[in-house]
């Protein structure tokens, strides 16, 4: 029979992200009166939607034991493609942007599965290369959207919920459902847990991993579209450092870097925590230099705790 105290500790160990979310929310609401208002919370959710959409793809990849650090560059590229094409036709711009994201996801995925190059290197190189493409495509200038209707897409609301939040919610629910209920999703955990055993069980793991990379690229393109529509402009330096924020949120949500663990609801909590911390630091007028420091330290602390907790289990 365990004592009540140790059971609470067990529970906290299992769900650290909710505890961090609650602690940071209460901390910020103590420090500022403007934090815990309905308007600000709605704002945090809206601002987090782009990060949240990207985090869904990253969670899928990380569950199967891979990750992608080219997402920041790909975000910039897809946003630039989207904005530049809206002048011709908005549906065409959307389709081509999504294809562009899926294409670069496929390039990464093929290099990882067919050429057997380490995912870290493939995506690190792609982070530089795709950023180069962004500069080539934009000629180092910012692109301003020519179609005011495109701007209305992300500014729209269904009921009282903003469209970006709805997109995020739909993707999140679909992803969580397929992770739990479909063979496809269950195999993601199997590949992350033990790739060799999964292969021996007859699962074509290369095809699966490729599809996770393609999906990830596709979701980055969705995020790129939302971002492009919110700004109705794109600059070549968009999304620099975003890959780290995405990985922080996913790891904060309890997804293991070694694969085989994680779920989308906790990733959502991780995204909201990061969104809340960024928002809270802004409200408290913390200088950008210090928030950079704080985010980095939180990241290292989270990995440290992640390693300690999985060691004690």
């Amino acid at each position: 029979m365990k004592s009540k105290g140790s059971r609470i500790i067990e529970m906290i160990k299992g769900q650290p992200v909710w505890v961090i979310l609650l602690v940071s929310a209460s901390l910020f609401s103590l420090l500022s009166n403007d934090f815990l208002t309905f308007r600000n919370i709605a704002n945090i959710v809206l601002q987090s939607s782009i990060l949240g959409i990207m985090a869904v793809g990253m969670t899928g990849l990380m569950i199967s034991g891979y990750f992608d650090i080219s997402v920041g560059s790909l975000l910039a590229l897809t946003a630039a493609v989207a904005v530049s094409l809206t002048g011709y036709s908005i549906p065409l711009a959307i389709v081509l942007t999504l294809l562009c994201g899926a294409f670069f996801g496929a390039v990464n995925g093929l290099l990882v599965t067919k050429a057997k190059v380490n995912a870290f290197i493939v995506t690190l190189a792609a982070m530089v290369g795709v950023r180069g493409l962004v500069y080539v495509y934009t000629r180092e200038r910012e692109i301003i959207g020519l179609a005011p209707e495109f701007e209305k897409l992300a500014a729209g609301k269904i009921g009282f919920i903003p469209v970006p939040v709805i997109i995020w919610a739909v993707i999140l629910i679909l992803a969580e459902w397929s992770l739990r209920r479909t063979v496809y999703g269950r195999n993601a955990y199997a590949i992350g847990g033990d790739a060799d055993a999964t292969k021996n069980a007859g699962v074509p793991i290369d095809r699966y991993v490729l599809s996770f990379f393609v999906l990830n690229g596709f979701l980055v393109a969705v995020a790129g579209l939302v971002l492009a529509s919110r700004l109705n402009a794109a600059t070549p330096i968009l999304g620099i450092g975003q890959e780290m924020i995405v990985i922080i949120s996913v790891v904060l949500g309890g997804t293991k870097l070694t694969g085989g663990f994680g779920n989308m609801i906790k990733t959502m909590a991780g995204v909201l925590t990061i969104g809340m911390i960024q928002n809270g630091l802004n409200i408290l007028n913390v200088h950008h230099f210090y928030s950079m420091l704080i985010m980095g330290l939180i990241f290292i602390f989270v990995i440290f705790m992640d390693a300690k907790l999985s060691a004690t289990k």
Partner: protein
Amino acid sequence: MHPVAGNLLSIVKRQGLVLAFIFLLVVISFFAPRFLTFRNVLLVLTQVSIMGVMACGVTFMLIGGNFDLSIGSQLSFTTVLVVSLHDKIGPIPAILVALAAGVAIGAFNGYLVGFQKLTSLIVTLGMLPVVQALTLIYSGGNYNQIQNPEAPFSFIGRGKILNIPMPFIIFAVTAIVFAVILQKTVFGRRLYAVGGNRVGSWFAGVRDDWVTFFTFVITGFTAAMGGVIMGSRLMSAQNYLGKDYELMVLSAVVLGGTSLYGGSGGIFKTVIGVLILGFLANGFIHLGLPYYTQMLAQWVIIVAAVWMDIKVKKEES
């Protein structure tokens, strides 16, 4: 196969990189007449030296099976430190403080990776913004410069001995010292053992945690050396100047043929990789291509180099 042809093929395979390097020089000089002049070659050698010194440390790191993504930030930090302290406490203390800062950051990374067994890529991905933020907080976001740009400190980055640029001499000496450490000392042999098989080396009585720790300290030290050369070359420091250096250095080391999976590699290979990247970047400018086309070339080079590495290993085994 005909014996001579077979021999030729194996030479091409083994020395393929050196041949590719010579080929590259010839092709670019064909299109850009000023590319292979004495002056330009000296210029490239000066330019690659900072990357080269850091690449020596990173070679150790990769052989030991880890990687440090925060070296670009460390370069920014130590450059800002040495430049801002130069006028306050004098050149030699400033250099010592910068080197100590590099060692301290390396020790922190090394503790987390070596003793706490955290994944090096992820830890240093977090350290990248932390060290960059420390740089910005320290400088207040301001641009630093040394009052007298002719001060003796500038000799490190701008001086020449017998017409050879000082940074290149530092790079060459560092490369030789590191090659000797790698080939002739117990530490060097242990480094290969830990990178090749960490658990195995532990059973053989190697303190893999300390070995890993020291690779991070050494890498921090070389990043700080890069910072000192950089500060002395520019006699000023911009806060983000080390940005993307981690990728350039990594490309150079991997291009040279040091494996990402640990356990193999060498300093000579790294020197070739550094020179190729340096001449390539310079050649691109001579050919009149915008700087960002280098980013595309880097993408192809890194992936191709690692792919080749994997293929060659498969054939050998």
